Each structure stands twice: as C-alpha cells, then as structure tokens.
C-alpha cells in the first residue's frame, strides 16, 4: 500500500502532467494560428448526406483531391499508395484561393518559395496511382464545429455560393483552421484561445 503522503503527491504530479499535456496542445495550436502562414482554400460543395453530423460540418477542399500526375515522386511501376505523409505545395491563384501546384510523398525536396506554402497531409494505403486518377489526402482540417443550430443554414448557403476556409500553416506543414469565409465576409474567426 502506498503511504498517504506519497499517494497525494503522485496524484498532484499526475494531475499536473495531464493538465500540462493538454495545455501544450492548446499552446501549439495557438502558435500555429498566430505565426502560421495564411492561405485561403476553396471549400467544395459536399454531398449533403455527409455534410452535417451533430454540430460540425464536414469540409472537402479543392486540395482534398490531388491528381496523381501532380505528384512528382511516384516510383515507376508503383500501382497503389502506401500509408504515408504527403506534402502539397500551394500557390495563390488569380481569384485569391490557393491551389496545389506540385506534391510529393514523404518530404518536399526543397523548401517553398515565399509566395508558396507547403501543407502536410496524410494518404492512406491502397489509392490507385495510375496517371489519370486522383487521390484524397487528409489534412486534419476537414471538420468545422459550429454553435448549436447554425449548421443547417450554412450548409444550405454553401451549395449556392463559394465558401472558403482561411487556414494557418505552421513551418512544419501542420494546418489549422482560422476562419470560415462566405465570399469576402468572415463568418467565424477563431480566437487564439
């Protein structure tokens, strides 16, 4: 049996470790929001069945589908993808939205230029890698939580006019949703904390 004092001390240490861990996640996310490079991504109209689940909407981006011919380092003769990270290089188009220019499995061979940004996603195993197809990476930003009850209205609006998501991207490519945009209007802007 643990003695009384030791038990209380280990309980306190345990609580601080868990709280510290959670605070670290918050601090890291806030840092991306504050210092990350900002890009605007177009949100695709989504199949309404998938659109609303509880109080978040599922988002699908233009860059959620990457044509295999954009991927610069597909090994010759490889038929299906591995479970791997993918780096997608983004550049701003004339309409203000950022789009994919090139992509690499694993790591990018050279850092992005100042007018470009690299976002890191994840590709699961088994995507067809023949030239005419597309693959669908996840970036960890495919969900937007809304105040209760506001999901339906936004879901309906999204299908009639373009919506965008302003994303902050950290130096290591981790993406973080910053704001939901209705055309030029900011609908929800995330505070740091």
């Amino acid at each position, binding site marked *: 049996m643990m003695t009384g004092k030791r038990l209380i001390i280990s309980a306190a240490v345990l609580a601080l470790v868990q709280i510290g861990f959670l605070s670290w996640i918050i601090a890291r996310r806030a840092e991306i929001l504050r210092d990350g490079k900002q890009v605007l991504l177009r949100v695709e109209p989504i199949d309404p069945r998938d659109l609303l689940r509880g109080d978040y909407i599922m988002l699908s981006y233009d860059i959620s589908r990457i044509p295999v011919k954009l991927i610069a380092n597909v090994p010759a003769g490889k038929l299906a993808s591995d479970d791997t990270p993918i780096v997608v290089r983004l550049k701003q188009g004339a309409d203000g939205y950022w789009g994919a220019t090139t992509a690499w499995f694993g790591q990018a061979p050279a850092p992005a230029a100042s007018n470009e940004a690299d976002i890191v996603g994840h590709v699961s195993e088994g995507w067809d890698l023949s030239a005419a197809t597309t693959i669908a990476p996840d970036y960890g930003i495919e969900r937007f*939580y809304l105040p209760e009850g506001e999901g339906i209205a936004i879901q309906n609006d999204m299908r009639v006019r373009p919506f965008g998501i302003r994303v902050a991207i950290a130096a290591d490519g981790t993406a973080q949703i910053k704001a939901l945009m209705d055309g030029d209007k900011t609908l929800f802007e995330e505070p740091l904390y």
Partner: protein
Amino acid sequence: MASYSSRVGADIARWLQAGLIDASTADALRRDVEANKRNSLSFGSILAMMAALLFGAAVLIFVAANWEAIPRLSRVAALFAIIFAGYVGGAVLKTRDHSAIGEALWIVAAAAFGGSIALIGQMYHLSGDETSALVTWGAGTALAAVALRSNPLTVASVGIADAWLFLRGFDYFGRAEFPHLFDVMAIVLFAISFWTRSRAARHLVILSIIFYLMLLFTEYETLQVAVPLVVVSALLFAAAIFAAGFVDRIVQLGGRLPLHALIGFLTGLVMIQFELAGESNNSGFAIASAVALAGIVAAIVLGGRESRGLRWVAYAGFAFELAIIYVVMLQSMLDTAGFFLAAAVLLGLLALVILRVEKRMRAPSVEGATA
C-alpha cells in the same frame, strides 16, 4: 459483504466460546476476514462507481454540446480544475479510508481528461479522427492507473482501449488501417494490471484479445489466426489444469484461466469451421467439429468439477457446435418438418448432456461433504 464479515465475526466469537478454536486461531481468522474485506465490492462502492461514471458522462456530454454560453477558455479551466481536484481529492479521501469514494473521484478526473481532449479538438477544429483522441485518453488513464495504483482506473483504460478497438475494427467505410496497435495496448495494460493488482482488468484484457483475434480473422479470413489460437489456448488450458498453483501465481486470475482458454479454443475452432464450411469436400469441417466436441468433453472432464463457469461455457460451446454442425452438414437434406424434428432432437440431446454432467459433478462433492 460487510454483513458477511460481521456474521463471520459473530461465528468466530461463538466458536471461541464453545472451545472449538483457541484465541490465537480466532485472532488469525479475524485478521484474515478484515484483510480480505477490503477487496470485496460493497454495495456502497458500486453506487459510488456508478455515480462517478454518470458524472463523467455528464462532463463528456456537456463538452460535446459545444455550448457557447460559457467562454471556451473558462470551460477548459473548469475541466482542468476537475482533473486536479479529482485526482488530488481522491487521493486525500483514499488515505482517510474512504477508498470507494476516492476511486470514484479518480474516475471522474479521468473522464474530465477525456472531455478536455474533445473540447480542444472542438476549439481548434481538429478533424484527426475520434480514434486517435481515444488513444490519447486511454494512455492518460493508464498513466493515472500506474501513478495511483488504482484498480478501477486500470479497468477504465482497458475499456477505452476496447472502445478504440471496436470503433476501428468496425470502421469498414473509413480508410482506417487495421488496429494492429492493439497488440501493444494489450501487453502494456496486462503488465500494468499486475502493478495495480487489477484482476478484473486482466480478465477483460484476455477477452479483448480473443475479440481482437476475431476481428483479425474477419479481416484476413485466414487459418493463420485460428490455428495458433486453438493450439495456444489448448496449451494454456493444459498448463492451467496440470500446474494450477504455479500458473495462477504467475497470471493471478483467481483460477479462471481455464475458462478463458476454453473460450479461446472454441472461438478458434469456430473460425476454422467457418473457413472450411464452404468447401465442397467437408472432411476438414468434420475434423474441426470432432476436435471441438472432443475439446469440450476434455474440458469438462479435466476442469469441470472445480468451475461451474467452465461447465457453462462448455455447454454453450456444445450448443453452438450442434447448431453449426446441423446447419453445415444436414440442412440441405431436411425440409421444414425435418428441421423441427432435428432441432427437438438436438435440444433434447443438449439437455440430456447438461443434466448428466451436472449430476455427476455434484454427486461426489455431496458425498465428500457427508463423509
């Protein structure tokens, strides 16, 4: 259970007075009753644990409601306060001999940790799936179990690992990988359960491993899962029966290892039967069925006397075997009337076997008591 210990106390006093035992024996008995009382589940501790689980669920649902009325930083702070107060307050109560309430508070704190993970996911729109959040939550809970040497927290972390396995295992529509990580979780949690003296967690881990192997089997449809499961289970069963004392000192399952081994053995054989049932030549299926039936008989003969639970698992296995053999071997030969006849015969056979075995198992022990 408290009433049991007070009853025994009265009995001991009476035996002492009647001169059946001497004072030192009476003392030793009282100490033993006192020492073992702690481990038993009292009604109060069950209620405390249920209250803790309800409160934990309330915390999680409160977070999931994404309620905007409270600024989210205050919600985070409130959850952090619950974590700290739960762990430390629980420890204080535990040292002051309110063990059940202390453990219950720890469960609340662990739930608040999970709720915080969910809330942070909401705050920053993290779409990294629920399952990875579950892994973090389970790891935090396992850490708490180790730090506080807590049986309920160990069981809770096994439960979270199972929830993860369940979500991943049945995620046919998602693109998730097969949850191979469960191997590691099971080993780690099994090891932790010795430190936290959590026999319940060990039972749960073993059953979860069998469930995991079933998922593995449905994913890959292969005998490479089923055959080792059968062999290992049979070996474990033999070890648990023939070296009972030694094996139980190692695994500390309260003599229930044969039960798990029999469940594993039958699960493996059913997998083999499913795999072979479709083949045109049914000899493989017949052999597997014969092995299953022989295994059930052997289990009852070798271990049935000591364990009623083992006998009932054996009967359930026997009933299942009868059903599966009927479906595969005979179904096409019989019409509907024949089906009812066959069902009647099989049920009658089952009843006969159970009645006979139960009678045989009971008889010698009654004689032993009267002799």
